[in-house]
């Protein structure tokens, strides 16, 4: 799966879960950039991402992410 494809799908998930009209995620995106993205919606995002990509993250993996780029790396690693 291409990185750009993942981002396309992620943008859709974020709009859906956070109820946003538009979002442009990048490797450097963090929770502070989006007002609606907090510790509670974060979990809803993870559940939606796991479902959409058919993968399962470990707890430590989730805790380690510093930005969207690191999350995308995890998704790519799982899809290989």
């Amino acid at each position, binding site marked *: 799966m291409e990185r750009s494809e993942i981002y396309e799908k992620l943008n859709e998930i974020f709009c859906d879960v956070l109820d946003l009209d538009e979002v442009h995620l990048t490797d450097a995106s963090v929770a502070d950039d989006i*007002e609606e993205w907090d*510790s*509670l919606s974060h*979990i809803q995002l*993870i559940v939606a991402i796991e479902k959409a990509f058919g993968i399962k993250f470990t707890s430590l993996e*989730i*805790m*380690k992410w510093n930005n969207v780029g690191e999350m995308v790396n995890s998704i790519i690693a799982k899809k290989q």
Partner: protein
Amino acid sequence: MVINSFRFLAFFAVVFLVYFLPWMRQRHTRQNLWLLLASYFFYGFVDWKMLPILLAITVAFWFLGGFIRKAIDRGNAKAASRFTTLGVVLGIGLLFYFKYLNFFAGSFAKLLNAVGLHVSWSTLNIVLPVGVSFFTFKLISYVIEIHREKIQPSENFLEFATYVAFFPTIMAGPIDRPGKFLPQLHQARQFNYNLAMDGCQQILWGIFTKMVIADSIAVITHGAWSLYPEKTSWYLIYAALLSPIQVYADFDGYSNMAIGVGKILGFNITKNFDHPLLARNVSEYWRRWHISLTGWITDYVFMPLNVRFRNWGNLGIFLAISINLVVIGMWHGANWTYVLFGVYHSLLFLPLILSGKFGKNKKLKPGRWGCIQFKDLLGMIGTHFLMAFGHIIIFSAGVPSIIRLFSCMIKGDWSFVNPFSLLSWYSILAIVVLLVLEWFTRNKEFAIQRESKDYTNKTFRIVFLDMLLALAIVIFSASANAEFVYFQF
């Protein structure tokens, strides 16, 4: 030695003068060593018996941090997890011994006696060391952050020990995270006029809210919590409604002083409050109250639980929030009232979770003439009442006292008491000023901060206003050196 005392002023004057000597400013290690010595002196002055334990636990965690990183580098995830668990157990164990051993053993003995097994338990003579709830949380966050690969272990023991024992925050926080604080110790601090002035303003505002507002309300609330059978219903209601303002003015006052002292020394300390009186619901309240503690618990208790329960929907969220709030309650001390406080708050979350309104609230927007919108105001008043109810739970001596206090409030003497007769006019004025400033200065760190944080011009105006505030403190402070509410936790 409380921050708003002349003893602290003398101590700080010496620390400050030596800290910024040209010879000291050349090397950060010299400044760090001086800060560490000052911090140990400060802590030893309050509780010298705890000093060896503080030093020993600092050494232990410093080594643990190194071991975790080495295990990660070797690809040994299991060993890294084991060392982290050891650190967490060690930190919690220390807290458990000092704060909870008597409580749990006593409760367990009572339970055994209740089911017919006769055991005797004599309470151990354990004195709760000041600040233990705050520095153990710093230590635990250090090992977890290394395990999550958010930070590298500190290579310099002096920097690490200074982080743990940093005197402005060791007594009652804010609980600084290693990732934000340790790098600040890595370079020499030069005297920064604007930052130091900002710090002085923050200290002054902290002293004002503590000594003029919190201490004057404390007289009323202390009367309510301890002498409730003698009080009228209206008195108890006023006390409960004033209590959230008192504790906020007290703890925010302390936090402002600690952050201000840090700024003078060239440090940026984590903020602890974001105008909690403006919270429109309980969820927002917890995002604005004691942020350095709630943030800590969110990252290390709530998130791991929430991640684990993530496929359970609303039930998972409710469970994670409930455990989280009971932990926050229990953090305050060993008493069933604190557990009940956590349960009460988690029940308040239930309607928010079910209606999907527990997430981050939209930013406050002013209505006409820059005032609060009516809908927001209603939310704030409602939240205040819910908090007041929670204060009755947390400040009662035990669960039976909560019930007795409520029955006094409901069945007691309902003869009207004029609320203005309980407080002096200047205390009421100060509370009104606080509430108004809370709204109009909601985007600032503290009420009298300059928007630009630049204090180089119009110095006369600053000095004049500061003199006025200082005069108010001298004339109207309720009592000298009254204890801070959070020192007991």
